[in-house]
């Protein structure tokens, strides 16, 4: 009811305020009037690719007709469609993983060296001060870094680069948060050379779109710039976002059927009448950036920056010891597990009559913990020191990553009168990540014990094997205590790069190269009972030297039509969690460690005319020698097994198309398409070892050739129409998705898994073939306007803008955003339905209303 009220109230404000429309501001794409829409998308995992700004460093030559280089020619229809409309289905540009794109703020890389991903959450909720963003897709010239093969994003958060404003805005949404309040104050540079910017926001939800997904986030940003003598601009920016939100589980089709909705989340249950979510994500990692921008002369600059990031990121979940699995979607608790139809019906009825059975039963967990008086002997390894008390069998654990990072980078830019520019830079990154578990809640018990229950099962005769830490055996744990795994990953990286670009009348050319050195090692802080000799202390140092090169040529047919060809070759060091087989317990590494090699080529045609903007690009990228590690329960070995996969080769090729036609001053139509083919083009190698004793069970082949890369639709189409009149705008678009594949379980594609199955039979095909998700479509609508309010008899004039975006207007509740085959396979019965796939469903109708008041 409350939500409905807010929606109506916003609509009322939007339509009923009788006010004069402002003269057109400098806005070229109406749908980007406010980035509120964008900020919503970001919280739905996919980051909104922001507005592409004209390159500020563009310097025209006076005596020739200069054709602006296409790469900086404004916003791209395809990229906009990808970021605003394809996100619901987790579309990834060219099917690339997140680690293939990079992001810099004030010159400092924001990619985490552990997983390579950009940590968007670090500046979540600071939309007002992240607008000064430049995006360079793929293999282009780049004057701030060598760049990655996917998108390269540069955000300038320096105070003097912000627009002067005092702005208060409020957003209301049914997505991850319900309310967002944001205040931003920017004072541009005064005559003494000082500039100041502040922004803060508060986002919260008692329950987001998914059940029990609460949201609570506060963000802050402070920046000061000082223009110094000798053309130095010194900038200091400090920002951070503290966030706690409830997570949503992936969903089994069976659970969704029982719950009568795809919007099912097993992570919660009622506790004392309130929904409590066991899986909470928390993060707060403040960033401090200091940048010195030295304009040596009109054509030369040297930007040097240092960045510090520190803080924790964690997620909670249930942990248990010698007790029944508390997850309500555990396969034995579902009706399908029952072979007998009568019992199956009884279980189905029980769940339908009492939906709480599909949720976490906190009362039972508390009861069990409160009644488990147990005695632990030799506590803390002291003989005879026994403690009796309520031992928790269920707890909430918090898996924490506490990281510290220092980046230093320096980029030199100069342009020669001949039209040739040179850019070069060096950068250093030092990172230490501390991975450990912490007790978040004992759920009514008095202590937990630092033991490994899986070891107890397998090695019942060796009492040392169950110790998570032999240096402190039989440790009793209270709330806030660290336990389980505890290790550092310490990594360093140094790189240097150089680029030469030439801009001529008809032809632009560039070439760039980078060389980098990186290393990392694991340092264990506990001596695991199963791996006494290789869990504690430092591992060996992994060292990698990598090279990259890229080059491109653009032929300017005329000022509106361009042809280009770019190519890139690079090697990339493997990430630590693809090298270490089980870093939680030991320092064992994959047997074959190699750099991944990437070769990419793209070619395209661009036509920018007053009425038509069109881009069509073809690309072909070859990845080889990738690595991966996954750990899962193996029914045949009755143990957790580590799958160390190497020699992963992939090919991504396809076409991107974007087109915008201005029909009249009021109407514009857009269309975009991404048609790709992303697949593994070889048979991967796997070494299967037991998580508990590192025993190498098998070395075999995964029959993965021509399996599709999952996690994104490989085909996405967009068509939209935009109406604009004065300051009112409305966009309506339809989007269609195809070729979205389920992530596959490697185990099912091995020789051993298929033993005894006759090739070609239905059973064989069922086990082997990869699942194609159905074709899907969405309809999105957005609109907005700006009005000038007259208050106190027109003494005070304020600008109020309102934007509404509605995604999935048709409220399709069955949109599968992605999914994966469970990493478990019953090798006895070979029945794939015993552990069916889990899915992520996209939101049904979801909206955001944003009101922004310029003070």
């Amino acid at each position, binding site marked *: 009811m409350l939500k409905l009220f807010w929606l109506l109230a916003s609509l009322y404000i939007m339509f009923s305020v009788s006010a004069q429309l402002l003269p057109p501001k400098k806005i070229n794409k109406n749908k980007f009037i406010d980035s509120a829409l964008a900020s919503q998308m970001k919280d739905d995992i996919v980051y909104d690719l922001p507005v592409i700004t004209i390159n500020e460093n563009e310097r025209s030559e006076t005596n020739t007709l200069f054709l602006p280089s296409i790469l900086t020619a404004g916003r791209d229809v395809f990229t906009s469609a990808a970021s605003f409309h394809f996100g619901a289905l987790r579309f990834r540009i060219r099917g690339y993983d997140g680690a293939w794109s990079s992001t810099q703020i004030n010159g400092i890389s924001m990619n985490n060296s552990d997983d390579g991903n950009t940590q968007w959450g670090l500046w979540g909720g600071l939309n007002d001060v992240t607008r000064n963003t430049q995006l360079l897709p793929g293999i282009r010239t780049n004057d701030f870094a060598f760049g990655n093969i996917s998108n390269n994003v540069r955000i300038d958060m320096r105070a003097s680069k912000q627009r002067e404003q005092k702005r208060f805005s409020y957003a209301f949404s049914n997505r991850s948060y319900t309310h967002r309040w944001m205040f931003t104050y920017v004072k541009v540079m005064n005559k003494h050379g000082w500039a100041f910017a502040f922004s803060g926001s*508060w986002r919260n939800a008692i329950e987001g779109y998914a059940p029990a997904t609460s949201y609570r986030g506060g963000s802050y940003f402070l920046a000061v710039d000082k223009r110094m003598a000798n053309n130095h601009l010194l900038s200091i920016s400090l920002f951070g976002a*503290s966030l706690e939100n409830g997570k949503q589980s992936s969903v089994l089709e069976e659970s969704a059927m029982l719950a009568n909705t795809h919007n099912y989340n097993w992570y919660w249950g009622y506790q*004392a009448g309130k929904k409590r979510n066991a899986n909470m994500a928390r993060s707060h990692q403040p960033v401090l950036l200091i940048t010195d921008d030295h304009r040596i002369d009109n054509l030369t600059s040297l930007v040097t920056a240092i960045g510090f990031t520190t803080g924790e990121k964690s997620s909670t979940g249930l942990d248990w010891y010698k007790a029944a699995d508390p997850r309500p979607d555990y396969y034995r608790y579902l009706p399908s597990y029952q072979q007998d139809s009568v019992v199956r019906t009884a279980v189905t009825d029980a769940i339908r009559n009492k939906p709480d059975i599909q949720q976490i039963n906190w*009362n039972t967990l508390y*009861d069990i913990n409160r009644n488990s008086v147990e005695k632990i002997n030799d506590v803390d390894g002291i003989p005879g020191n026994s403690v009796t008390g309520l031992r928790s069998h269920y707890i909430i654990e918090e898996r924490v990553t506490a990281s510290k990072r220092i980046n230093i980078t320096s980029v030199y830019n100069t342009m020669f009168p001949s039209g040739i520019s040179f850019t070069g830079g060096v950068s250093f990154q030092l990172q230490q990540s501390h991975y450990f578990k912490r007790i978040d809640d004992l759920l009514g018990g008095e202590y937990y014990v630092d033991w490994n229950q899986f070891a107890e099962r397998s090695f019942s005769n060796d009492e040392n094997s169950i110790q998570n830490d032999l240096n402190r055996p039989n440790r009793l744990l209270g709330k806030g205590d660290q336990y389980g795994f505890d290790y550092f990953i310490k990594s360093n990286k140094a790189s240097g790069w150089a680029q030469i670009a030439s801009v001529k009348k008809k032809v632009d050319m560039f070439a760039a190269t980078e060389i980098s050195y990186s290393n990392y090692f694991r340092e264990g802080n506990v001596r695991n009972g199963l791996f006494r000799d290789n869990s504690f202390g430092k591992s060996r140092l992994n060292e990698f030297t990598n090279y990259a090169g890229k080059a491109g040529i653009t032929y300017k047919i005329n000022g509106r039509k361009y042809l280009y060809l770019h190519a890139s070759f690079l090697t990339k060091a493997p990430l630590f969690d693809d090298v270490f087989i089980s870093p939680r317990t030991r320092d064992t590494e994959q047997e074959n460690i190699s750099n991944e090699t990437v070769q990419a080529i793209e070619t395209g045609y661009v036509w920018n005319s007053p009425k038509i903007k069109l881009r069509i690009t073809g690309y072909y990228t070859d990845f080889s020698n990738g690595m991966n590690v996954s750990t899962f329960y193996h029914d045949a070995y009755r143990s957790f097994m580590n799958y160390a996969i190497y020699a992963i080769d992939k090919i991504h090729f396809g076409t991107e198309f974007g087109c915008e036609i201005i029909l009249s001053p009021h109407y514009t139509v857009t269309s975009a398409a991404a048609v790709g083919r992303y697949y593994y083009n070889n048979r991967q190698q796997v070494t299967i070892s037991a998580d508990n004793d590192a025993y190498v069970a098998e070395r075999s082949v995964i029959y993965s050739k021509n399996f599709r890369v999952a996690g994104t639709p490989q085909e996405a189409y967009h068509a939209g129409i935009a109406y604009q009149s004065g300051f009112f705008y409305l966009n309506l678009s339809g989007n269609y998705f195809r070729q979205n594949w389920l992530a596959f379980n490697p185990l099912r594609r091995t020789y051993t898994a298929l033993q005894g199955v006759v090739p070609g039979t239905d059973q064989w095909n069922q086990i082997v073939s990869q699942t194609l998700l159905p074709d899907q479509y969405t309809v999105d609508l957005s609109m907005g306007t700006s009005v000038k309010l007259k208050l106190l008899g027109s003494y005070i004039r304020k600008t109020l803008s309102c934007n509404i975006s509605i995604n999935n207007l048709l409220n399709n509740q069955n949109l599968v955003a992605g999914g994966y085959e469970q990493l478990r396979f019953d090798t006895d019965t070979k029945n794939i339905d015993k552990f069916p796939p889990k899915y992520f469903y996209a939101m049904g109708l979801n909206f955001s209303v944003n009101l922004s008041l310029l003070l």
Partner: protein
Amino acid sequence: MKKRNRKIASSAIFFACALYLGTGCYKKFDEPPQYIGTDIKSNLTIRGLRSMHFTGNFEKVLDEFIIEGVVTADDSHDNFYKSIVIQDSTAGITIRLDGSGLYNIYPVGTQVFIKLKDLWLGDYAKMIQLGAGVDRSDPTFPELIALPQPLFDRYIKKGMMNNFIIPKTVRFDQLNDSLQSCLVKINDVEFAVADTGKTYGDAINKLSVNNIIKSCSGGSVYLRTSGFAGFAAAKTPRGNGNITAVYSVFRTEKQLLIRDTSDVQMNGLRCTGNGAKILFSEDFERLTANSNLTGNGWKNIPETGGKYYQVKATNNNKYAEISAFATGEPLLVSWLILPMINLASSANEVLSFQTKDGFDNGAVLQVYASTNYDGGITPWKAKWVLLKAIISKGNGSGFGNNWVPSGNISLSSFTGNMHIAFRYEGADPGNIFDKHTTTFQLDDVKIVGN
């Protein structure tokens, strides 16, 4: 203008502080109240429920019957798997539950009420059980289906915890089907000789093992233990005593199932088969009378005073004797040491002997044990532990009429090779008040074990 800037800056700082406070405060979750049981009442005894069953059949309970019982066995040590056993004053029954860690919810001692309507009675090889349905997928061997976990709360209501059922003490010949799933205690039993010192279950191959338990008064029963049991690798004791177990049957075979090894209390001497094993026995009859004691492995070593133990005979009974009388020694210490005893292949070893004292004036005979005596001529250099024995004393004039038994002295705290020694300490100085010249006689030294 400047003032306004300051105002804005201060409000910005306030805003930042408010944000910090807002994010810093995570409210603690309210905790659910303690479980206080249920007000449900039973309307059927377990015996009444059992009487509804015909062997080999499956019966669905159609009425709103409720039984009440206390859990006597759970899965905490995994000998009972996916089942709990409950019992009321009339009988017991096994309930098949499809879950693990059941002992967390229904630990031994929990009062439970079971709403029987729509549950099924059946038997597994004549062992009556309660389940959720019948699996007829193998028509020749229909089987009860365990109650699925999501249905636990629907059929089972918990009452109070920590009730304890006193096991019913029975004899082997009283074990019958009416005691199925009941907690019973049987006294004077021991493992068959061939099954002593064996593992309870086969923990390596995860197989169940039947060990035979015999009664002193005749008869035997199987003790069945799962290979998954936490104590499967523990060894069966050699002694005699009692066992507490849940009574079960497999067709006509009688079985006992223990919850944990603490249910087996067998530390006494065996009564069946060859009985206890004799590790050492000496009645001195084959030694030469009226001479220093020698032979049969005995070590007769004077420490001080040079006095040896003697073999003496009275009424055709030979025994060992020592006294400081008439030695004139100010201090007299003499050792009589048994041959080395190996305890490696026995258990519950017991030492016994008998003594008689004469003309007691304060000399002392003590019995010691050592595991580090090297068998040499300087026993006093080894480490000896004094054993608690009853030694005859107090006969100031002449000898006592009867031999005094030492009592059963347990040697079970020792392992491996050991020695037992008698040590006499007396004195015969000039001063009559310092004379300690008691004569001790020693006979029938025996060590037995299982």
